[in-house]
């Protein structure tokens, strides 16, 4: 029989990880669907009892998304406009049943190329905080997600949460998801942009990321450079900016389509950056 642990404190959880190999279980929304036909023999560390990792915190300079924060919690947290893309991504995850159980960190750790959260976290310049017994470290999301279902997490490490910096000046982020139906849909392509603005509305800093177009979500540095110092203008987005992408053909869409759709979504996202929807904070 397998072991099932549901610790209530972080030290207990980390001690368990130090002592043995566990499959970490959080909202279980990736865990169970991967075990419809067969369940491997495994020991489970269920982290849902870790109350200390539940509350989202919004500080003046950063936002803390802990491991147990669900997508629903993200929607309800009252996040600032700089993190609006994360809220938009949350609303587009599965249906509300999934949003109520699934966590942002689980989405990140599962590291699916089609995970909606990851391009957003890249655009928001989030940092992952990991812990093992007696040691903590931080990694940028780009260094944490290594590939299709591969992360930099060591087997004895637990992800504690994410730090999302809050820019000092006006900032805004947007998320665009394309799926083949209205709800419960895995993205064909999704893009996230996060921008900081100069007082006159020109772009002071920009991060752009695209998901489902490579084995992991990618930042588009050429696009970011092209928009720097400019007003948000969709015409500035060029096909060449998408060169790093390497989409594939699958049941959801062809590679050529993904590339074309990513370009369109990026242009729309840039246009939305420039729209006066509420004031950027």
């Amino acid at each position, binding site marked *: 029989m397998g072991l099932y642990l549901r610790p209530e404190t972080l030290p207990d959880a980390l001690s368990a990880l130090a002592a043995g190999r566990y499959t970490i279980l959080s909202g279980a929304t990736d865990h169970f*669907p991967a075990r419809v036909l067969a369940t491997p023999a495994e020991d489970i560390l269920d982290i849902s009892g870790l109350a200390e990792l539940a509350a989202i915190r919004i500080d003046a300079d950063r936002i803390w998304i802990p491991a147990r924060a669900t997508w629903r919690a993200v929607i309800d947290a009252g996040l600032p406009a700089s993190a609006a893309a994360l809220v938009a991504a949350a609303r587009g995850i599965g249906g509300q049943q999934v949003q109520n159980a699934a966590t942002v960190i689980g989405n990140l750790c599962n590291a699916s190329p089609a995970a909606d959260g990851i391009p957003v976290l890249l655009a928001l310049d989030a940092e992952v905080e990991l812990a093992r017994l007696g040691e903590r470290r931080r990694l940028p999301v780009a260094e944490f997600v290594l590939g299709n279902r591969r992360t930099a997490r060591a087997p004895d490490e637990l992800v504690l949460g994410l730090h999302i910096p809050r820019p000092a000046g006006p900032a805004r982020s947007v998320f665009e998801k394309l799926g083949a139906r209205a709800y*419960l849909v895995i993205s064909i392509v999704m893009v996230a942009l996060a921008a900081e603005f100069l007082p006159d509305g020109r772009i002071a800093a920009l991060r752009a990321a695209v998901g489902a177009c490579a084995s992991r979500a990618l930042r588009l540095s050429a696009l970011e450079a092209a928009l720097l110092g400019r007003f948000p203008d969709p015409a500035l987005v060029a096909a060449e900016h998408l060169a790093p992408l390497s989409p594939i053909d699958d049941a959801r869409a062809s590679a050529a389509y993904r590339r074309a759709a990513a370009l369109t979504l990026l242009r729309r996202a840039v246009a939305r950056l420039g729209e006066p929807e509420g004031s950027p904070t």
Partner: protein
Amino acid sequence: MKDFPAARLRFTLNGHAVATLVDPMLRLADLLRDHLHLTGTKIGCNAGDCGACTVLLDGRQVCACLIPAGQIEGRAVVTVEGLAENGRISALQAAFLRHGAAQCGICTPGMLMAAADLLAHRPHPDEAAVKDALGGVLCRCTGYRKIVEAVLDAAAGDTVTASMSSDTVGARAEKIDGVAKITGSEAFGADRRPPAPFLSLRVIRSPHPHARFALGTTAALMAAHPGLARVLTAADIPRNLYGIYPTGKDQPVLAEGVARYRGEAVLALLGDAETLADIAERDIPIRWEPLPPVTFADAATPEAAQLHPHAPGNVLCRGRVVAGDVAQGFAGSAVRAEIAVTTSFVEHAYIEPEAGYARRVGDRIEIFACTQTPYMDRDELAGILGLRPDQVRVIPSAVGGGFGGKLDLSLQPLLSLAAWLTGQSVRQVYSRPESMAATTKRHPARIRAEAAADAQGRLTAFRFDGDFNTGAYASWGPTVAGRVPVHAMGPYRVPHVAAHSAAFYTNDPPAGAFRGFGVPQAALAGEALMDQLADALGADRLEFRLKNALRPGDRTACGQVLGAGAALVSCLAALRPAWQTLRATAARRNEAASGPLRFGVGIACMWYGIGNTGMSNPSEMVIGVTPAGRVVLFSGAVDIGQGANTILRQIAAEALGVPAAAIDLVTGDTDLTRDAGKTSASRQTFVSGNAARLAAEALRAAILRAANAAPEARLAFRDGAILVSHDGIETRLAPAAMVADADADGLVLRGEGRFDPPTTALDENGQGIPYASYAFAAQIAAVAVDTALGTTRVERIVAAHEVGRAINPTLVEGQIHGGIAQGLGLALMEDYVPGRTENLHDYLIPTIGDVPPIEVILIEEADPLGPFGAKGVGEPALIATAPAIFNAIADATGVRPTTAPCTPDRLLALLHASTSETAR
């Protein structure tokens, strides 16, 4: 063992404290169903994809299939069983009942729980909020519209129990089984278990589309797994061949040496559920030798492997309807159009995966499982087991959606065989991937068609060649090949017709029966041609169809002269105002549009013959009075959610002259009811409805005779007596006093009815009377196409259906909504690819957010043969939708989709190709 040591668990369930000892990694859905015996929570996928298992956890909706039991410690769970308030159904449940928001009912508990969460947190939601809240629950039956209405209605506090003046023909009567569906008490295939101990059954299936295989010895496997009771192979099966048609029995229950499709059953394991789950696929002693698969593209080529000795060229069968001289028709025409269309496999995607159990009772076998056709199952199982039909008893479970997919046997043969051989009860529940891999699909089609009209806009000629991929086995392939050429030219007068069809064997899953039997595929071609011809003539697309519409007295391509009730003209006339308004709106929006959105409106017509094609398909019903003075209708017609139980009772009540509530119903048990034929071909209202009417008329006559009363006398059943009154004189019959005369069914007075629609077999040119009645319909779709992404949003559907008589308008609308949702899926997203889309997140069906507002216009021009004028609507609902959407996309963009589904990548490729062509 892969389970975990049981741990103590305390939580609150529907307001009551529960303390139990369970595996903490048990899914909450299994805890509820298997351990706590609350089967109202349904399982459709075990993967979060369908929402059927939705429950409230601390007041918020979650998928019970994704919650480990360990996580509910100290929390509050509410299931559908906890919705009732003070022993009465909640206002929300009542609204579902009133609106007919539950058809088969398998999604209903999930829908109700999602709605309960919404209303608790937001008592006055708008439609968008309802969709957001219910977006995680799939429904394959209703098209969601009545569900949205019901939730909004419950929120508005509308508790008006529409004081029903009548519950017979024409009334929006609540479904007879509606309360069971909204309380979760309805027993679907997985909801009832045989008494313990029983064996579970697991099927080992081919991972290859085409392969030779050899079985090794099972001794090692048996030794390694003491809980493994037996392994069944083809050698255990008395007659290892079955199939729908007497001449088409080509499918083995377990493959013998060669597997012909991915998902085909090759072995069955019997034992306890845990043991079976633990056995790894790689430990099964089978040696596979993959062979090149025969595909639809190459099945007809000389190089293709021949899959069945009886089918040279891999041709299962051909169909043909020829009238006039098609060459002459084309020669004399002013305009011509042609088109080639291809379609995909479409999965039924009923939310209930196949489930049931069998048990041996002496020298008889009893099977409780989901089915659309208990009598065919009985006879087929008897054949497979080598028994007499009367040794087999089929007890249909409630069916959680069928759409044709439960017309073929699925788990019944192996369950029956296993129970027969072991003497023990045997249970099986298909997983979602197993259901999708193993069972039948809609036939993919490859169609070339051509049509012509004269300068006056009259159709002159129609040529149609349709190839259908029937997959590895015949199943209902002959039905498709036979039905398609009859319908291929659409509901129009065409003097010169040559329509041919062929069904090809391939190494794909067997294509079987699916709502419309090939006609939806054919309509995609035919209705495109109608638009092309109208455009070539400069005619309005609706008016062109109207001019050519079949009318009473017209002769079809089969040579049949249509009678009254052929009312396509009325459908089109009813649509004209909406057509003109929607067209004008789309034109205005296109003019104003500066972005990538383009708007379009499409129209399509359809006709559909009710019942089997040129073949006898009788139904028999019995109705009688018990000694206790109750009227009982014995109906073998299976209600698969469409409402046959309700409709047949309404018809019987009307004919008997009593309220429907006075009639009890005994349904679909082959020991208790007569053969009503299968629930398919839109035939139960028309065929079984007539049988019910005739039976009730016969009972009425018997009662009047016994009371010596005049034909106009009024009947009432009260306090165990039959009251017969006429001209102020009341005669009282006491059924209790007649108990000595009770017959084998326990009836003291009875009526029997039998109806077989008058048809004739078709000759080699397809001439004859294939159907006694046809349904007609026309639908309009308004779409918005995002030309930069290739996405299509259907914004509105207007559907005019000629139904003869709407026995129950709510149920008729429900059929139309549900058919439209499936048509929308066929048009835009549904594409089953074996091995790639065997689940409900890669195989997409429309969600609540994809189905637009639907306006239904019911045209009631009584069919002279229909019961109270009624005809069927089940399949007609779906057929016009996809062509209307395709025509709307063409209208919006100027490019014509020819491949279904028209996914964003396909449409964008078409748009790009057309712009680069213009640029050249």
